[in-house]
C-alpha cells in the first residue's frame, strides 16, 4: 500500500491497472497483483463462512477461495449477471475476486490521481487507495491487501 502510494506520487511514473466492473462503478487493481482472469465455475459454497466468501473452486487443481467484491463493498447481490473472477495471491494462498466484468488494462500516471474523497462510505474508504479521473468516468483503485483482510480477522487481531 505504501509502495503503491509512493509510486503514484513519483513524478513521471505510470502504473498499469486491470479494470473491473461492479454495477456501474469501475475499479482498478494493480496489475502485478493479478495472476489470472477466469470465469468462475463449480463453486462449492462453504456453510458458516463470512458472507463475503462465495465458496471454494477448483482452478487448475488448486483450491481457490472465491470472494465476492459486491458483498465486500456492501452492495446488493445482482441477479443473473455474467460474472468473472480475478485470481489474486497473498501469503501463498490463491483467492478469486468475483466481479461483474473485466475491462481493459489502463496505464495511468500521477497526474490523474486523486486521494480518496473523504465523504466516501467508510467501507469503501478502507478498501480504496485513490481515484483516477478518466475521460467521462472515475476509476477507484482498490487496495488488494485490504480486500483480503476481513472484519472478523481485524476484530480478532485487536481482541488478541
Amino acid at each position, binding site marked *: 500500500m505504501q509502495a503503491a502510494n509512493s509510486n503514484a506520487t513519483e513524478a513521471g511514473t505510470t502504473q498499469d491497472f486491470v479494470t473491473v466492473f461492479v454495477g456501474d462503478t469501475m475499479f482498478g487493481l494493480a496489475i502485478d497483483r493479478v495472476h489470472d482472469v477466469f470465469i468462475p465455475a463449480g463453486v*462449492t*459454497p462453504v456453510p458458516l463462512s463470512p458472507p463475503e466468501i462465495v465458496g471454494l473452486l*477448483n482452478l487448475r*487443481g488448486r*483450491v481457490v477461495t472465491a*470472494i465476492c467484491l459486491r458483498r465486500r463493498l456492501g452492495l446488493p447481490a445482482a441477479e443473473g449477471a455474467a460474472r468473472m473472477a480475478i485470481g489474486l495471491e497473498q501469503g501463498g494462498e490463491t483467492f478469486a475476486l468475483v466481479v461483474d466484468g473485466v475491462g481493459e488494462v489502463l496505464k495511468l500516471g500521477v497526474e490523474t490521481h486523486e486521494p480518496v474523497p473523504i465523504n466516501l462510505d467508510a467501507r469503501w474508504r478502507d478498501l480504496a487507495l485513490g481515484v483516477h479521473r478518466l475521460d467521462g468516468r472515475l476509476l477507484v483503485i482498490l487496495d488488494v491487501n485490504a480486500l*483480503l483482510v476481513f472484519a472478523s*480477522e481485524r476484530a480478532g487481531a485487536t481482541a488478541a
Partner: protein
Amino acid sequence: MDDLLREFLTESGEHLDTVDTELVRFEQDPNNETILRNIFRLVHTIKGTCGFLGLPRLEALAHAAETLMGRFRDGLAVTSPAVSLILATLDRLKLILADLEATGTEPAGSDADLIEALERMSLGTPEAAAAPEPKIAEPKLPEPKTPEPKLPEIVVRESKPGEVSLEDLEAAFLAAPGPDDAPSAWMPEPAPIAQAPVAPAPIAQAPAAPVQEAPAPVAKAPVSGDAPAEAPEGGLAKMQTIRVNVDTLEHLMTMVSELVLTRNQLLEIARKHEDSSYKVPLQRLSHVTAELQEGVMKTRMQPIGNAWQKLPRVVRDLSSELGKQIDLVMLGAETELDRQVLEVIKDPLTHMVRNSADHGLESTMQRISAGKPARGSIRLSAYHEGGTITIEIADDGKGLDLVAIRKKAVERGIATQADVERMTDAQVAKFIFDAGFSTAAAVTSVSGRGVGMDVVKTNIETIGGVIDIATQKGVGTTFTIKIPLTLAIVAALIVRAGESRFAVPQLAVLELVRVDATAPQRIERINDAPVLRLRERLLPIVTLKGLLGQDDTGTETGFVVVAQVGRQRFGILVDEVFHTEEIVVKPMSSKLRHIPLFAGNTILGDGAVVLIVDPNGIARQVSQGAQGGGPIEAEAEAAELGDPKTTLLVFKGGAGSFKAVPLSLVTRLEEIDAGKVEWLGGRPLIQYRGRLMPLVPADEAIAIRTEGTQALVVFSDGDRAMGLVVDEIVDIVEERLDIEIAAERSDLIGSAVLRGRATDIINIAHFLPLAYDDWARGAKAASAKTATLLLVDDSAFFRDMLSPVLKAAGYRVVTAPGAEEALAILQADARISVVVTDLEMPGRSGFDLVGAMRAGDPRVAGLPVIGLTGTIGADAVERARTLAISDLVAKFDRSGLVAALAELDAAPNAALRAHAA
C-alpha cells in the same frame, strides 16, 4: 561459498547428532573399536572441513576433541568425565554452528576452557587416567599448566586458518569436482588406502597432517586421506543416498497429488463414454500414477529413529543429573512414517522419555530396596499396525500414584470424590493429560520440567492420534501412542447433505445405519433432539444440515454415520452416502480456518471441491449442545428414561435380613480388625486413613463385634467419612430399582425385589446425622406422584442421596450438577414440572439459576422451585421471595422436602414458608 557453507552446516549437524548417540554407546562399550573409529572419522571430517572453510574456532575445538579421542584409540581409559567433556565440546560446536547458520560468520569468543580441559585429559597416560577426573569437574578454570608438550600443537593450529587464503579457497573451489563426483570423494577407494594406511597412532601427535591437505580439491579430502580403517565397515552403505531439499519433495508431492486428481477425472470421464479406445492407455496411466504416488510418499517417509536420535544423550544426561542408572532400549527404530508426522511427535516423545526418566523411574536406592534391578529401563518401541503406527514408551518404575492423582483431581475440581472413586484406574491415569495437572506434584515431589502432558496429548491429537496409559503400582507405566502414517492422503466417505457433498474421514466412522420413517431403524425425537436406538442403546444424533446452519426439519430419511471421538459416540445424519475415496487433504483457506466443523478441503475425481468434515469439531459441537437442546443432555436424559438400572450393594444387616444401598454412594468396602474399634463418649470410632471415622450400625439388631473382623461400608463426602457396620457384604447387583413398599422406618427408603429376594433399601440420609450431628436428620418418604423433577446440586453425593428419596416419593428425577446444565435440561425437557435446587453452588448459584429461569421462556419461568439451603437467613428468605421460590428447605430435611413437594402438589401457588433446620 554460500552453498558450500550450507552443505557444511547440514552435514556437520547430522554428524554431531550421530556422534552424540555413538559416544553414549561407546561409553557403555569402550572396547568397541568400530564405534570409536566411526566417531573419530566424523569428528575428523568436521575438523577437516572447518579448516578448509576457514573456521578457526570450530576447527580448534574439533581438533582438541579429536586428539582426546585419538588417545582413547591408543588405549586411554574411557571415563565418564571424559565422555561428558567431549559431549560438552559437541554442544559448544553445535552452538557455534547455530550462530554460523544465523549470521554466516563464526561468533567471536574463546573456547580456551574446553580446549584446555580436553588437552589436559588427553595428556593423561592410560595409567594415570583416574588423575584428570577431578580436574574435569571444573573445566572452565584456566589452570596454568606445563606448556611444553602443548606448544607445537597450538602453533600449528593457529597457523592453519592463515594457510587457507582466499585464493586457495577460490582455486580449490574451482578445481573441486562437480556434485556428481562428490560421492566418490566420500568413498575413499578402500583398496589403495588400505595398503598405505596412515598409522592411527601418530594422529594424536601429528594433527598437522590433514592441514597440509586442506587446500586439496574437495572439502572431504582429508577424510579419505585419514580415515582408512573404517571405510570398509560403515562407509559404503551411506553412498547410496543423495541429499534432496525438502521443498523439492513437497513440491513433487503436490504435483503427484494433482496428477492423481487428474487421473481420477479422466477415469470419471471414461466411465461415461463407452468408447474403449482410451481404456487401455488410461488403465496404464492409472497404474503408473498409483505407483508414482506410492514412490513419492516413500520419499517423505523417514525412520522413526530420526526422532529418537537425541534420546540416548538426553537419557544419559538425565541419568547423571538425577543420579539414576537408566538403560534406554529402542526397538523398531527403522519403522517409517511421514516426515510431517515425525516432526509433530518428535518433541512429545522427547518429553515423555524425560518424564519417564525423571518421574517414572525411582532412584537407585529405592529400586534396590524394592527388590528391583538397580538399573532402571526405559523401553521405546515402534511398529506398524494396519494404517497406523504404534509407539510405546514403557518404564519399569514405580507406576503412577493413582491415589495422589485421584486426590489431586478432586482438589482441582476436575471431578468429584464420588466420580473419581467410581472411575477405573485407566480413566484416573488420564487426568495427567489435563492442562495444568502437574505430574510432578501429583506423582512425585520432584519438580516438573518443561511442558506438561497436556501439550503432549494436544500435539498427538492434532494429527489424529490417540494416547493411552497402562500403569501398575511398583511395576511401571506404559504409554501407547497410535498415530496415522501420513496426514496427506486419507480415506474418506463422500456424503451429501442438502445440496452439497462432504467428505468424512473414515478413521472416525464406526458404521453406517440406514434410517427411514417407516423402517424399524428410525429417528426418534425427545423434545426435538433426535436420537436413534442402536443395539439397545440410544445414540444422540446431529444432522449435518443442522450443523451447517441449514433447515433440517423433516429429515427422517437418510443415513446415520456413527462416529466416535474419544469416548464420545454420536451419529451424524446425512441425506445420502456415495462411496469412499482416497482424498488428498488440502488445508483450509486462512479465511475459513475459524470454522471448527471443517478440517480442510479436497478436489474429488469429478473436479469438484468438497469440504472435509472434522469429526473432532462436530464432537465439540455435540457436547456443547449447540444444536437444539443439546444431544449430550439427550444422552444423559436417555439414560434416565431408557433403562434406569441402578447398581446396588447388597449386604446382610440385622437378623439375617438383606439390605441394599446404591453403590454410587459407597466410597469403599472395608474389613477391619474388630479390636481396632475404639469407644469415645459412648460412640464407636476407628482410626481410618489417619483420621477418626465414626461407626454406625446399619440396623439396631447389629452389634459391633469385639473380635474377628468387622465388615464396614464406608461413605464419604468431601473429607468426612462414616463407616456403616454390617454383618456381611453379600453381592453387587445391577437392577431396576422399583421401590415396591415404602417403609415406615426412617432408616429405610423402602423394599424392593433384588435377585428374587426382598431387600430393604437403606436410607443413608438417616445414618449420616447419627455419625455427625451436622449431617442433618432425615425422615421417610411419603405419597406417590408421577411428575418429573429436576434436582440441581453440585455435590454428586447429595444428588445420589436425594434421587432415590425423590424417586421413592414418586417422582421421575432428572439431575444436573450446576446451573448451566440445569438450564439446558429445562430448555430440552418439557416434562419437568418442578425444580429442586441447592442454593449454594460454586459458580452460578441456585439464586442465579432461578433468576435465569424467571427471565427465560414462559414455560420455564412459571415452574415452581424449591430451594435447598444449609442455613436459612432472613436475606435468603427475602431473595427467595423476590424470585418466587415456593419453599426453602434445609439441606438434610428430607421429610421437609417431601412435605414441601406434597404441598406444592396440593396448592401450586403455595406461599413461601421457611423450614428451619
